[in-house]
C-alpha cells in the first residue's frame, strides 16, 4: 500500500484542547457536574505506627449537615480480592481501607466524614477523636535495615577495582520527591443499580483503576466505569489507584448517593506515592585516560512496611557506558511510611544523577573534558544485553549541544569565572530512558460526512496525547486535523496501557496508526470496486488519501472523497479497530538519549544558586509535534531544577510526621527560578521501536537535569555536593 504523505505529523500544531483549557471548560476530576453530591473529607492518622483504640464520632456527627463518619469501627468488610498483577500494586499486602485497626504510617486514612457541604465535612473532620496505641515508627532510611537485595553481576568488579589506577568512592543522598501535580487527587463516585461509576484523576482508566476497584468490591470489571477526560498533571502519581478512591466508592455505596472526595494538598504527601529517597554508594575504577574498568553500586531505597516498591534504578549503571565489570546491590528498606511509586523518569532520574556526577568527578580527577570522557566510554552495543542499539546518538547530542552552548569557551578550572556577585559555572550530563511499549487498541471510524472519530482508553495528563493522536490519525486517513476528533479517558473505550513511562505515543499512537490504515484500506477497496467511483478498477494499493480525498498516488486527478464514496454506497461509516502488539522478544537495545548543558550562577556571599541557562539536545526518535515536544522538554527541565535545588521532604522521625506537607515549605520551582530554557530534538526516527518511529519523550527530559546542575555548581564554586537538593546551606 502506498505510503501516506506526512502533512500533520512533524508540524507544531496548537493543542486540539487548547480552547477548552484556556476558557476553564476542561473538566478535571472534581469539576464534573454530578447532582446531589455528598462531600467527603478524610481523617488522617496522627501517629506513625500503632493501632486505633477508639474512634469517637459524637461531636462530628452533631455538626449540622454531617451525614455520618465511616471508619474501621463501622465499615463493612470488603472482599479485597487479589490484584497482584494489576493496577501497579507492588508485591506485598495493599492497604485495605477501614478493614482493621492497624496504622502503618503517619497520615493513613482512618475515617471519612460525609456531609451535605464541604465546609461541614471539613470542620467535622477535626472533631473526630481518634485514640491510639502508639508505637515508635521507623522512618529513617540511614539507620533502618534493608531487605534481601537484588543483585547484578558482570565480571568481577571488586577485583577489577583493586588495581585500577584511578579510584573513586562516592556516597550520595537523594531526597524524596513528591509529584505535587497542581490538580489534587480527586474522585467522585456513584452507584447506579450495582454499577459503579467513578470520575477520577487517573492515568490508567482500564486495568488500573477499573480493575483495582473491581477487586476491592468484588465486582466484574464490566460493572466499574472510570471516567477521566482531563488530568491536571500527575507525573506518575495517578498511575496507581490509591486508597482514597476506594473510600469514595465505599462512602457512595453506604450513603446511596454520589460522593465527592478531593484530597487536601497536605494529604498528597502521604495519600499517594512519591519518588523514594536513596542512599547510593558508587565505587568506580578507571584507567588514567578515563576508560572505565569497573563499578560497584550499593543502592538503598525507602519503601513501606506493607509493600515492596522497586524501580529501574539498576539499568543505567549497566548500560550507559562501556564498563567491563559491574556489581550492583539494590536493597529496599521497609519503613513506616506510605508506599512510594513511579515518578517521572522513575529509577533513571536517581541513578543517572549518581553516574553523571561521578563521571564529572572522574573527568576532573584525571584532567580531561567531561564530554571527551563520555566519548571514551561510548559502547558499540548495549553492555548489559549485548544487543545492538536501535539508535544511540548520544555523542551527536553532545557534539551539537557543545556547539550551540559554546562549550569550547569554557575554562575547566572550577571557580575561575565571575559575573558581579556570581560565581559562574557550566556543567553537562547525559540522559537516557528506556523505550517501552505496551499492547494497545484504538477504534477508528470515518463517517459519511467526511469526519473521523478515534476512541481509545488512554488519558492525557498534559503532554498533548489527544493532539498528537489527532495528527497521526489525520495523516494516515488523509483528513485535515480539524475533521478528526479523539475521545479518550473512559474505561468503556478500547483498552490502552497506563499513560506513563513515555509509552503512550509508541503504543497508542501505533494502534491509532494501524486502525486508520485499516479504514483507509477498506475505503480504497470499496472505491476500486465501485463502478461509480473515479477509482474503479484501480489497484487499491496505489490509493492514498489527502484532504479527505482518496486518489492514486501518481495521479491525483483520479480521486473520490470519503464523503461521496460512503454516501453513494449507503454506508454511515467505515470503521476498524487498530492494534499494537509489541514484539515478544527485543532484538535491539532501545532508549531515548539526551545531552544536558547548564550554566549556573552562585552568589559568592549568599550561596544562592540561580540557573542562568539550560540546553537539552535529544535523540528521541520521531517527533510528532515539535511545539508540544519542546513544552514537555522545558517542563522536564523545570522538574529537574526542583530535584536539584529545591525539593526536599522533611520527616520528624519521632512520630513519622512530614513536617513540610505544603507548597509553601516543600519548594517547587516558580517562574522566577526559571530562565529561558532550550530544547533541540535531533531529526530522525526509530523504526525498530514501533511503526510510527517514536521513542517517547516524557521521562528522558527530566533525566540528567539535576546532575548537569550539580556539575555546574561544582564548576562555579569548586564545591562538590553529593546530596540532593543542593541548598543554600551547602554553599556557605
Amino acid at each position, binding site marked *: 500500500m502506498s505510503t501516506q504523505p506526512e502533512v500533520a505529523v512533524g508540524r507544531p500544531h*496548537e493543542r486540539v484542547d487548547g480552547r477548552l483549557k*484556556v476558557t476553564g471548560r*476542561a473538566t*478535571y476530576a472534581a469539576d464534573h457536574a454530578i447532582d446531589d453530591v455528598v462531600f467527603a473529607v478524610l481523617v488522617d492518622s496522627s501517629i506513625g505506627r500503632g493501632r486505633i483504640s477508639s474512634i469517637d464520632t459524637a461531636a462530628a456527627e452533631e455538626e*449540622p449537615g454531617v451525614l455520618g463518619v465511616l471508619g474501621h469501627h463501622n465499615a463493612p468488610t470488603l472482599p479485597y480480592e487479589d490484584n497482584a498483577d494489576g493496577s501497579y500494586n507492588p508485591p506485598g499486602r495493599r492497604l485495605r481501607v477501614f478493614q482493621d485497626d492497624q496504622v502503618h504510617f503517619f497520615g493513613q486514612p482512618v475515617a471519612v466524614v460525609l456531609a451535605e457541604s464541604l465546609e461541614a465535612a471539613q470542620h467535622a473532620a477535626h472533631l473526630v477523636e481518634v485514640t491510639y496505641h502508639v508505637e515508635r515508627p521507623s522512618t529513617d532510611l540511614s539507620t533502618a535495615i534493608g531487605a534481601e537485595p537484588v543483585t547484578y553481576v558482570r565480571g568481577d568488579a571488586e577485583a577489577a577495582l583493586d588495581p585500577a589506577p584511578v579510584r573513586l568512592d562516592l556516597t550520595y543522598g537523594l531526597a524524596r520527591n513528591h509529584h505535587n501535580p*497542581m490538580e489534587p487527587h480527586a474522585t467522585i463516585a456513584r452507584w447506579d443499580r450495582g454499577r459503579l461509576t467513578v470520575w477520577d484523576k487517573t492515568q490508567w482508566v482500564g486495568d488500573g483503576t477499573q480493575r483495582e476497584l473491581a477487586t476491592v468490591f468484588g465486582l466484574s470489571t464490566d460493572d466499574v466505569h472510570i471516567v477521566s477526560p482531563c488530568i*491536571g498533571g500527575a507525573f506518575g502519581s495517578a498511575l496507581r489507584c490509591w486508597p482514597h478512591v476506594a473510600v469514595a466508592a465505599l462512602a457512595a455505596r453506604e450513603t446511596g448517593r454520589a460522593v465527592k472526595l*478531593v484530597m487536601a494538598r497536605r494529604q498528597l504527601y502521604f495519600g499517594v506515592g512519591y519518588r523514594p529517597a536513596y542512599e547510593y554508594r558508587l565505587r568506580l575504577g578507571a584507567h588514567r585516560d578515563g576508560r572505565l574498568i569497573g563499578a560497584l553500586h550499593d543502592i538503598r531505597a525507602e519503601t513501606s512496611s506493607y509493600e515492596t516498591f522497586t524501580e529501574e534504578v539498576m539499568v543505567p549503571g549497566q548500560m550507559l557506558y562501556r564498563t567491563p565489570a559491574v556489581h550492583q546491590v539494590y536493597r529496599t528498606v521497609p519503613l513506616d511510611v506510605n508506599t512510594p511509586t513511579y515518578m517521572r523518569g522513575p529509577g533513571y532520574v536517581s541513578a543517572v544523577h549518581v553516574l553523571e556526577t561521578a563521571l564529572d568527578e572522574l573527568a576532573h580527577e584525571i584532567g580531561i573534558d567531561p564530554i571527551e570522557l563520555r566519548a571514551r566510554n561510548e559502547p558499540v552495543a548495549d553492555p548489559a544485553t549485548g544487543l545492538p542499539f536501535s539508535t544511540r546518538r548520544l555523542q551527536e547530542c553532545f557534539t551539537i549541544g557543545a556547539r550551540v552552548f559554546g562549550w569550547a569557551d569554557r575554562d575547566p578550572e572550577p571557580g575561575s569565572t565571575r559575573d558581579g556577585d556570581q560565581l559562574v559555572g557550566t556543567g553537562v550530563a547525559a540522559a537516557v530512558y528506556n523505550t517501552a511499549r505496551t499492547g494497545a487498541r484504538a477504534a477508528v471510524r470515518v463517517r459519511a460526512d467526511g469526519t473521523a472519530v478515534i476512541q481509545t482508553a488512554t488519558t492525557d495528563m498534559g503532554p498533548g496525547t489527544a493532539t498528537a493522536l489527532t495528527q497521526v490519525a489525520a495523516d494516515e486517513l488523509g483528513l485535515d486535523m480539524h475533521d478528526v476528533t479523539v475521545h479518550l479517558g473512559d474505561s468503556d473505550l478500547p483498552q490502552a496501557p497506563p499513560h506513563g513511562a513515555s509509552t503512550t505515543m509508541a503504543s497508542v499512537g501505533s494502534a491509532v496508526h494501524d486502525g486508520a490504515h485499516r479504514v483507509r484500506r477498506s475505503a480504497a477497496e470499496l472505491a476500486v470496486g465501485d463502478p461509480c467511483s473515479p477509482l474503479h478498477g484501480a489497484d487499491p494499493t496505489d490509493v492514498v488519501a489527502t484532504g479527505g480525498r482518496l486518489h492514486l498516488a501518481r495521479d491525483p486527478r483520479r480521486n473520490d472523497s470519503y464523503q461521496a464514496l460512503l454516501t453513494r454506497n449507503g454506508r454511515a461509516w467505515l470503521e476498524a479497530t487498530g492494534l499494537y502488539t509489541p514484539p515478544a522478544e527485543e532484538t535491539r537495545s532501545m532508549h531515548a538519549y539526551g545531552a544536558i548543558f547548564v550554566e549556573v550562577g552562585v552568589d559568592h556571599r549568599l550561596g544562592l544558586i540561580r540557573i542562568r541557562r539550560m540546553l537539552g539536545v535529544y535523540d528521541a526518535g520521531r517527533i510528532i509535534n515539535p511545539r508540544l515536544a519542546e513544552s514537555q522538554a*522545558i517542563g522536564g527541565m523545570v522538574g529537574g531544577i526542583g530535584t536539584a535545588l529545591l525539593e526536599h521532604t522533611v520527616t520528624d522521625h519521632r512520630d513519622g510526621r512530614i513536617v513540610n506537607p505544603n507548597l509553601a515549605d516543600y519548594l517547587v520551582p516558580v517562574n522566577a527560578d*526559571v530562565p529561558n530554557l532550550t530544547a533541540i530534538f535531533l531529526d530522525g526516527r526509530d523504526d525498530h521501536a514501533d511503526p510510527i518511529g517514536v521513542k517517547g519523550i516524557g521521562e528522558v527530559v527530566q533525566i540528567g537535569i539535576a546532575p548537569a546542575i550539580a556539575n555546574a555548581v561544582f564548576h562555579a564554586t569548586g564545591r562538590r555536593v553529593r546530596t540532593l537538593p543542593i541548598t543554600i546551606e551547602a554553599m556557605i
Partner: protein
Amino acid sequence: MPNSSAEGRAVSLTVNGVLRVVEIDERTSLLDLLRERLHLTGTKKGCDAGACGACTVLVDGARVNACLNLAIRLQDAEVTTVEGLTTGDGDLHPLQRAFIDRDAFQCGYCTPGQIMSGIGCIREGRAGSRAEIREWMSGNICRCGCYPRIVDAVRHVAAGEGA
C-alpha cells in the same frame, strides 16, 4: 436532614457581570462559592492555602487568591473568573489566545489562574520585561513547568497594549 444553612447568611455580589444573591455558610471561601455553589469550576483549587495561585480571580479588578477570601466579606464586590473573559460570541481574551499560540500550558490546571494573574500583572504595570514578569507571576505555580512560555504570552499581550 440537618443543614448548615442554620448558620447561613446572604451575600450579594456580581460574578462575571451577573448579580448573584446567595445564602452561604460563613466559612465558605470565594473559591468554594464559585466551584461548589455557582458551578463555575474554571477556577481551580491547588492548595486551598494561598500558596499556588490556581484559584486566582479578579475582585474589583485586582488579582486575588479566591481560596483566601471569605465569600461573606465580598458584599457588592465584582468578581471576574476565567469564564467571564470570553465574550458572548466566544471571542477569546487576547491573553487566552496568547496562551494557546505560545503553548503556555500542558495539563491546563494552573492555566485559568495564570491567565487571571497575567491580566492582573499587566494591569498593575508589572509586565515591562521578562525579568519583571517572572517575578510578578511567581505566585502562580505551574508544575508542568510552562514558565518560559507563560512569560512569552504575558509579554506578548503587554507589549501589544503598549505597556
